[in-house]
């Protein structure tokens, strides 16, 4: 409140924002030589990034297949997001939390959540498929932008508990148009919450292009909250990993929130319900196909001499084998008893609901969930 008692006119100018991380990036949002040195990402980690991106893409492709084969009601592809999701998630410590958005399949994989279980949500078996506490990974949240205040609240709690926990939350560029996003950014700044905001700017919100969605640049909004921010090449897992790790350290140190804009492109449809041919041409997409996270990581490994074909083959076969398991898990997944819907509403359910449940079950028998389909 110092500014409140200061003599007029109170300027309260924020000192030119300290943002050493920005200095480690080229204008294109990749690491400078100096940046790569400072970040000190090991070959092993870079190989992990590559491996997990290959797996993510393969499982994502399998998700598409399963949807086409009628095993899933819906699928939202991550194609083009692999670097942001794998790089961002891998950069966080195990003890850190992640509040993802609905497209963060790749982050869930990094966190070790069984992808076959994740898919049961898109099969319509349940609204959420994992225990957030077990994986320190929040549920996929459908109302756009609304997970951002959750992450900030959780981060405020980490600060209250004097923990060294950082919180990562993700969202698309469309989410930055929501009031919740702004309110949460401001809260994070006011409470200096240890949260890293990772915007996965894929330039599309379903059919709405960035130019009809975002006034100005998302990265430039950080300064308006007195926060540092950088825009990173969304196809560069190494850069995203390094920047996210430094931003999380920044948050853990108590220096407050950080905004990262990972700039890439949504190569696939919004979801399997979408028909992009109605609003964009192959000519729009084409230049971005080359902008490939996996190829980029392979190059970086080659440059480091940390690449060999055996490794590539190993990644591929692990991916194929995981995809097969995911398919099995999904197809084997059986619905819970429909009464579960009642049981999950409250931790301490009222008698009235228990009575409704019993009446429901009585009416149900001998029907089975299958018939319910």
């Amino acid at each position, binding site marked *: 409140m110092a500014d409140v008692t200061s003599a007029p006119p109170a300027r309260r100018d924020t000192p030119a924002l300290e943002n050493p991380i920005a200095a480690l990036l080229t204008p294109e949002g990749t690491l400078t030589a100096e940046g790569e040195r400072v970040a000190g990402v090991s070959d092993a980690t870079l190989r992990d990034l590559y491996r997990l991106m290959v797996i993510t893409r393969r499982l994502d492709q399998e998700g598409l297949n399963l949807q086409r084969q009628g095993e899933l*009601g819906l699928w939202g592809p991550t194609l083009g997001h692999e670097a942001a999701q794998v790089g961002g998630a891998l950069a966080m410590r195990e003890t850190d939390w992640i509040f993802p958005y609905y497209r963060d399949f790749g982050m869930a994989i990094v966190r070790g959540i069984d992808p076959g279980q994740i898919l049961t*949500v898109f099969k*319509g078996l349940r609204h959420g498929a994992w225990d957030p506490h077990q994986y320190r990974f929040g549920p996929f949240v459908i*109302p756009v932008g609304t997970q951002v205040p959750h992450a900030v609240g959780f981060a405020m709690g980490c600060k209250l508990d004097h923990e060294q926990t950082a919180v990562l939350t993700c969202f698309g560029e*469309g989410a930055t148009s929501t*009031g919740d996003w702004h309110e949460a950014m401001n809260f994070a700044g006011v409470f200096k919450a240890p949260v890293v905001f990772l915007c996965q700017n894929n330039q599309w919100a379903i*059919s709405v292009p960035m130019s*009809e969605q975002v006034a100005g640049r998302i990265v430039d909004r950080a300064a308006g909250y007195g926060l540092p921010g950088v825009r990173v090449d969304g196809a560069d897992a190494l850069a995203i990993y390094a920047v996210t790790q430094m931003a999380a350290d920044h948050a853990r140190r108590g220096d407050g929130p950080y905004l990262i804009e990972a700039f890439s492109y949504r190569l696939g449809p919004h979801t399997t319900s979408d028909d992009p041919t109605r609003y964009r041409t192959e000519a729009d997409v084409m230049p971005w196909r080359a902008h490939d996270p996996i190829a980029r990581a392979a190059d970086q490994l080659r440059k480091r001499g940390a690449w060999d074909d055996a490794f590539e083959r190993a990644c591929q076969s692990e991916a194929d084998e995981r995809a097969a398991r995911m398919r099995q898990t999904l197809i084997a997944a059986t619905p819970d008893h429909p009464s579960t819907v009642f049981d999950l*509403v409250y931790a301490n359910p009222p008698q009235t609901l228990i009575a409704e449940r019993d009446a429901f079950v009585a009416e149900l028998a001998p029907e089975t969930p299958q018939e319910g389909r």
Partner: protein
Amino acid sequence: MATATTTTTVTMGKALNLALHDSLRDDSRVLIFGEDVGKLGGVFRVTDGLQDEFGAERVFNTPLAEATIAGTALGLAVKGFHPVAEMQFDAFSYPSFQQVTSNIAKYHTRTGGACPMSLVIRIPYGGNIGAIEQHSESPETYYAHTAGLKVVTPSNPADAYGLLRAAIADPDPVIFLEPKARYWMKQEVTLPAPPESIAKARIARAGTDATVIAYGPMVSVALAAAETAASEGVALEVLDLRSLSPIDWETVYASARKTKRVVVTHEAPVFLGLGGEIAARLMHDLFDTLVAPVERVGAPTTPYPPSRYEKLFLPDADRILEAVDRTREY
């Protein structure tokens, strides 16, 4: 498109599209906006082709911000436009709840009548489409309980056209609820039809033994139940409310007086659903006329279930018929 009437078979989605088209054509102050209503034509294609024909000034995408879709609609209404704003799905209208409840519903009062809110907010609602969470809700109670709004929902293509045109022509703010599971329902209609009155209910099927009051997605279910009942010699009257606020009590009472037995059904939870209001009022005013208590058939007091279970939770013809039996065996 000529104004001479033509008879064609259209889906409800197409009927709504034609209503928007004809409104844009006939009134230069009509604007259409919302998420993805432009080139894509909306996720349900209800605005298909409208931007091409009427231009990006009158039919345009907005950023992802429902509160301000509603708030700018208010401002445009003050400027003398007739905005038709789209909320992409039921649950995604909730961010606009403050703008709709505290401003749009109250602006006519606040300005002493100087600023009528001649706008429409279109909301696809209801379940039964196998969707993920938050794409299948029935929010009508939230809006119908809010004085200052009008709430309308069609049950078939012909009404969809007539009611939407009437809603756009109405000087007051209309929440236009579109039963998304019926977007693909086909019907032969003569268009352009004269605008419907937005406040009149409709007898969808005449009967004498009991009245089933339904609206939106449940009307066709009620009609199916009436078919079955007929085959068992029971003549059900099916009443399609069409307007949820205000309710056309005259038509409701007339039917209830005639059949003396009433079932109300909706997808929304029974608890504080419209069925409660209708049942309370009917049993109050016709306490000695009704021979059985009014039955309600709706959802239990839970969030909308995962789609795998939705058919078990949604009211169906069987549950409606069981309710009818309860009124008849009473």
